[in-house]
């Protein structure tokens, strides 16, 4: 779709002129909004160099860097665990054993219907009550894992179901057992097909690690908050945290998009749609 069409039809001279005028007016409107915001910040003295200096000094930036490292550490562990548990649950839901299928379905349906914050609180308050004394780090990682393994299970299951049945049949035909067929033929292809969705869900995990500040895990948001409080420039600290998060998540989202284009070329369609997995494109 090129820019200058009105639903299929190329614009004529009048339409082009109107678009140009609207473009200039729209640009001015957006600039006015931005200028208003900057003006508000300046009025309140929030743009003063002194408010940023300390945060952006070597020491201040070091704190943010440590926070980011802690965030990435928790997100990485949560993704690894979630994919592992999610794969097991996906296989459970596809199993021929009715009990296994039922149990895996219950797990998936229950945990994807709950807020991840609630499950992180379960990691923090609930696990110790069960006699499992975990650190804040593990409380966060396990809480995130409970939620996201349910999502990953749905993604991987959708990937398996999207494969042509001939793949499994061919595997059986060359004498593989059901288990071998799953492990050697079905799962690798399913994961490769669902790679864009898996990366996209990884972004969700990364974003959700910021809930860790509620339980006092020293991730990016928490360290930013602390730095902002000690230097009396809270707003600036939050803005820096937001920019760092947005930059990292944007890069990962672009990676997911690139993978999607690649798998669309490879499988001849725009990715494999995952019915019932809302979180990939809904911000869950």
């Amino acid at each position: 779709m090129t820019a200058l069409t009105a639903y299929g039809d190329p614009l004529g001279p009048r339409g082009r002129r109107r678009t140009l005028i609207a473009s200039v007016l729209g640009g001015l409107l957006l600039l006015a909004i931005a200028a208003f915001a900057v003006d508000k910040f300046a009025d309140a003295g929030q743009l003063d160099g002194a408010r940023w200096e300390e945060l952006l000094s070597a020491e201040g930036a070091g704190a943010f860097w440590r926070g980011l490292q802690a965030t990435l550490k928790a997100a990485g562990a949560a993704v690894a665990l979630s994919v592992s548990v999610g794969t097991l649950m996906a296989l459970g839901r596809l199993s021929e054993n009715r009990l296994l299928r039922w149990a895996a379905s219950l797990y998936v349906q229950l945990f994807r219907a709950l807020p991840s914050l609630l499950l992180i609180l379960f990691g923090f308050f609930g696990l110790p009550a069960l006699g499992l004394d975990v650190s804040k780090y593990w409380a966060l990682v396990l809480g995130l894992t409970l939620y996201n393994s349910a999502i990953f299970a749905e993604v991987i299951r959708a990937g398996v179901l999207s494969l042509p049945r001939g793949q499994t049949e061919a595997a059986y035909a060359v004498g593989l057992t059901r288990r071998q067929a799953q492990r050697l033929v079905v799962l690798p292809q399913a994961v490769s097909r669902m790679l864009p969705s898996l990366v996209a869900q990884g972004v969700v995990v990364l974003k959700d690690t910021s809930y860790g500040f509620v339980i006092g895990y020293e991730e990016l948001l928490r360290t930013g908050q602390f730095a902002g409080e000690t230097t009396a420039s809270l707003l600036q600290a939050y803005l820096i945290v937001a920019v760092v998060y947005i930059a990292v998540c944007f890069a990962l989202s672009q990676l997911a998009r690139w993978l999607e284009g690649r798998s669309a070329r490879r499988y001849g369609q725009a990715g494999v749609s995952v019915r019932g997995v809302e979180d990939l494109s809904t911000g869950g």
Partner: protein
Amino acid sequence: MQLSTITDNLDLYLEGFVGTLQLTALGALGSLVLGTVLATMRVSPVPTLRAGATVYVETLRNCPLPVLAVLLAFGLPKLGEPIRSFSFFTWAVLALALYHAAFVCEALRSGVNAVAPGQGEAARSIGLTFPQTMTLVVLPQAFRTVVPPLGNILIALTKNSAVAATIDVTDITNQTEFVINDTIDPLAALAGAAFFYLLLTLPTGLLVGRLERRTAFSR
């Protein structure tokens, strides 16, 4: 773990339940309005508006909701009056609306794009005007594809409303933290919270699933 932990604190839970409902309803309303505006901008032929909406969507979609919530609730009041006097509840609703508007925009946009170009061309070729093409041919079809994703966003919004607890706004999660502190029975307290969330998310999920199946045949 005792059932009395839940039953004794039922009033707290109900208060939180109402809070979550309010946050979800207002957040949904706000994100629907803003998301529609953004989607219109993104499919418009006007380059600057398209660019503005794209920047908004990419920024908000990649910003964690808790970060957005504390940035709004604790950061922005530093700008002075009149922003200083906003309540935390207002900030929570704003955070939910601003965040989910990006996703609503994308759902609406892909709904419009999913209508085959031939549909619009056919409408034009039998002499319908542009507004007629949109209202009679394109939008009714776009609406079908858009309802299930919007329903899914509503479910996500319901769950994400728990972010309100991070800025101390009354909702199920926030009340649960009180119950945990009061009763020292976290397992029952959390189970109670889970029950109330499931009360909201499961029926919505079933409804969306049914809509999804019903609209699936259309193309």
